């Protein structure tokens, strides 16, 4: 049987797809195809890439710590500002049980070198690494990623039959040993939901940009039990990312201090993949040569290095244990992280 043209085909347009491609090419010497578009600078973001996993398990924190250090190695500077900046993140909880979980997570963060201070409503985390996604998309020559062959994500199809998978983009068939679906959009568009492993679910996401309003409490505010994340933008405009459709408007309205009404400048509706137990699902599927990475949350870009090792079979013992526990179909009883009830 002829050797495939590519060792790995990565389907995705987000920052993780770039970082993973860079790691696979630069560190592991793999032949990589990336099927993705350059996200439009005019589109509203659907997530903010902050290295603050809502995790209580040391193994998950260690993985992200490692991935963060590796991301620093492969991310280029773009001249005036580094692509990795630091920000403050306020995470709030309304429910008593959520507050207890958040307290635990905050102490894990303290144990991993982040600064955090308790607030009445939650925790304020300082110096949280944040990836400037838009600048990353514009950056040229990111080590390794530039060596991946890139195909535009137009008319991408994934056909699964008889235990094998065929990937194509437009008229081009992508001949690869492994197909990696790293973006939620890729998973949603290409993988039938009946093939989604438990506990993944489709979740509505609304992004909305407000006109300038009263300053929010921190550059990033995540209201855990309301399923709403606010991001401060230029001139005190606010980007709000709201998970789920139920009570959407009232949940959003509860996040602002006013004055009301607050005008919206833009709104986008889409979907993402949520994990019911708050823990990622990462690994190969039984069907074909497909590898998925889902439910990684806001810290997704910082899984690039560990993912590359998992794909190439070069993980150490601790990482192997983590990936085994989080693989599709594995026993999930001991992987759960913090999870919100706001899901659909």
């Amino acid at each position, binding site marked *: 049987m002829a050797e495939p043209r590519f060792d790995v085909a990565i389907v995705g347009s987000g920052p993780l797809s770039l970082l993973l491609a860079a790691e696979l090419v630069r560190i592991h010497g793999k032949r990589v195809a990336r099927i993705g578009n350059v996200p439009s600078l005019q589109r509203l973001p659907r997530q903010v890439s902050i290295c603050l996993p809502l995790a209580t398990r040391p193994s998950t924190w260690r993985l992200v710590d490692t991935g963060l250090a590796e991301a620093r190695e492969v991310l280029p500077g773009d001249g005036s500002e580094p692509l990795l900046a630091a920000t403050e993140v306020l995470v709030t909880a309304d*429910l008593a049980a959520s507050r207890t979980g958040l307290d635990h997570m905050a102490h*894990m963060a303290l144990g991993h070198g982040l600064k955090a201070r308790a607030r009445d409503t939650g925790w304020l985390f300082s110096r949280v690494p944040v990836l400037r996604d838009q600048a990353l998309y514009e950056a040229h020559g990111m080590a390794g990623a530039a060596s991946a062959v890139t195909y535009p994500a137009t008319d991408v199809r994934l056909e699964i039959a008889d235990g094998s998978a065929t990937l194509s983009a437009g008229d081009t068939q992508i001949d690869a040993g492994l197909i990696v679906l790293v973006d939620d959009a890729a998973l949603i568009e290409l993988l039938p939901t009946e093939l989604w492993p438990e506990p993944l679910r489709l979740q509505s996401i609304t992004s909305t*940009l407000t006109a300038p309003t009263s300053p929010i409490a921190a550059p990033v505010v995540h209201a855990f039990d309301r399923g709403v994340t606010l991001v401060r933008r230029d001139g005190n405009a606010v980007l709000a990312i709201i998970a789920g459709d139920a009570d959407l*408007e009232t949940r959003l*309205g509860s996040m602002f201090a006013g004055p009301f009404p607050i*005008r919206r400048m833009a709104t986008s509706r889409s979907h993402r993949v949520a994990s019911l137990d708050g823990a990622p699902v990462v690994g190969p599927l039984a069907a074909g040569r497909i590898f998925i990475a889902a439910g990684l949350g806001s810290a997704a870009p910082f899984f690039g290095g560990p993912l590359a090792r998992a794909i190439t079979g070069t993980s150490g013992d601790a990482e192997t244990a983590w990936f085994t526990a989080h693989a599709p179909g594995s026993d999930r009883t001991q992987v759960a992280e913090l999870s919100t*009830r706001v899901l659909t």
Partner: protein
Amino acid sequence: MSGHRLPADAPRGFGGIELDRSKSLSFTLDGRRIAGFAGDTLLSAMLANSIDTLGRLGEAPIGLGERLLPPVATKDGRLLPLERTPLIEGLELTAQGRRAGPRFRQQSSLRLAVAQLKTVPMAATADVTLTADLVIVGGGVAGLAAAAAATKAGRSVVLVERRPWLGGDARYYGPVGEAASPEIVVDDLLKAIDGFTVLTRTEAFDIRGSTIVAHQVEAPAGELPRGRIVAVTGERLLLATGSNQRLPVFSGNRLPGVRSTIEAYHLAKRYGVSGGASAVVSTPSNYGYRLALRLHEAGVAIRRIVDTRVGAQSRFIDFAKASGLSLGSGQVPLSATLGRSGLSAAFVNEGSTRAAATLEATQLIVSGASQPELSLWMLAGGGASWSGGRLVATGHLPHVGLAGAVAGFATLEACRDSGRVAYDVLFGAEPTTVADTQIDPAFETPDAATPVAPRADGAAFLDAGTSLLLRPVAGARSLPTGHALSIGDVAAAVDLGLIAPGDAGAVAGERGAPGRDIVATAWRPAEPEAGAPSPYLEGRFGARPTRVHLIVDGRRVFEPGALVYANTGRGDPGNAVGVIVDAATPGGTALIDAAVLETMDRFVVAMTAGPSPARIKPS
């Protein structure tokens, strides 16, 4: 001409078909008396009195236009829109907004700071609710044809139209070849409509499920006009919202005296208003020639008709030549600047950056390609994509239909037929094909794209509406992300290479239909009835995690979430043997691996303020 008013007997009704010139009326705005006639709107009367300047954006003067106007307030505080409110004798009004100071054209300006304009409030709650089998937005031929089909079938109809009249832009475009005139088509449709409710001067601004929400200006006889919010719920909704004419991108494109051909047409035809005694007409379309001919016949001196196309063919071009009008071709407007007696318009040849011609006139009439007005469609959940140089509607909504120009139809007959077919489809019939037959390009050259000029000094806007988005500086790769975008802005940004065509539909959907204002709520999640489990602790602290009460002294309280370490293992959270799960006074309840408890009873709790020794409280 008298002032900016065309002669009452101007040919082809260009004296103003809405006016009753036997009834002179007047109102005051900011203390200035403004005279007009019965049939005028407040805006048309102002323009007829040479008040054509809104104010300044920075240092750039901005003209009054149908799509950018301040609300005006009556003495008792009612806010009214200038373009939809009829002129009523004795009204005393004040323009709303911060004054920007009289630096220029004091007599013709409202002197407002354009960046801080107020808007007519579009309240969330309706003053009036109506219901109908079919609700139609848009009173052009497509909307009227749908209304005619519905009333013929015995269905109730409410039709919402923002302008004071019905018929849309059909008269501007006219018939194709020997087809019936727009006047005849509109009259026939109105005769065919029986017993439907029509709300003119009513601007739809939202769709909520099956309900259209609109702002209506009511002007009952003998009473002051007032605005109210009308919610109209229908079994089916039909959007016949037409199209907007794109604004060519050039410096000075929103100066006072610069106006679109469609707006110039309606001002002249409906109200006998023109932007002064002379005009330069810049057009990528044959319709611009026809407007120029009509204005010429009405006494406006046409300095030149400048076509962006080269070698265009049209009967209107032939008529213009026969009328002795000066014609130019292959040139786009480069810049407009204000002079003492009007505007100075510079034109540039295709591919050049230097002005090839400079013309002076009191007004510069410009036009770009037509862009379907998709805002309501996208608010309803419909999509859009870039096709053929414009954003077109995509997707299917089960209870909402599209007809006419917003659905992409161009000719009068096609718009009319599409209204009828859209009605049929909304109520369950199979769709039928609508022919949209254009005249052979050999005889009528198709419209060209919206002109985009090389950069020049002066503010160049991307669209004529309220977004006020300027052309970005040279080298910019994107538009400002915190700025509202109209559909016209998105289309212009595609032309400028700032938005990829493949992203244009999604960007327009996000920015063009941003949704309702955010209002205050006190929403909080309900506490679960039973204590929530903590699955994130499963397996964390051994096979037998055990709750113990830790203390250090009689006062200190341990923080929930704080990690518990064996005396020797502090530092790496992976070495923690437990966690504080409840505060206690003193100390706290910890969850610790039972196997660990068998070997030790003294620990370190990693508090925020630093580590604290801890021991199991004696029972």
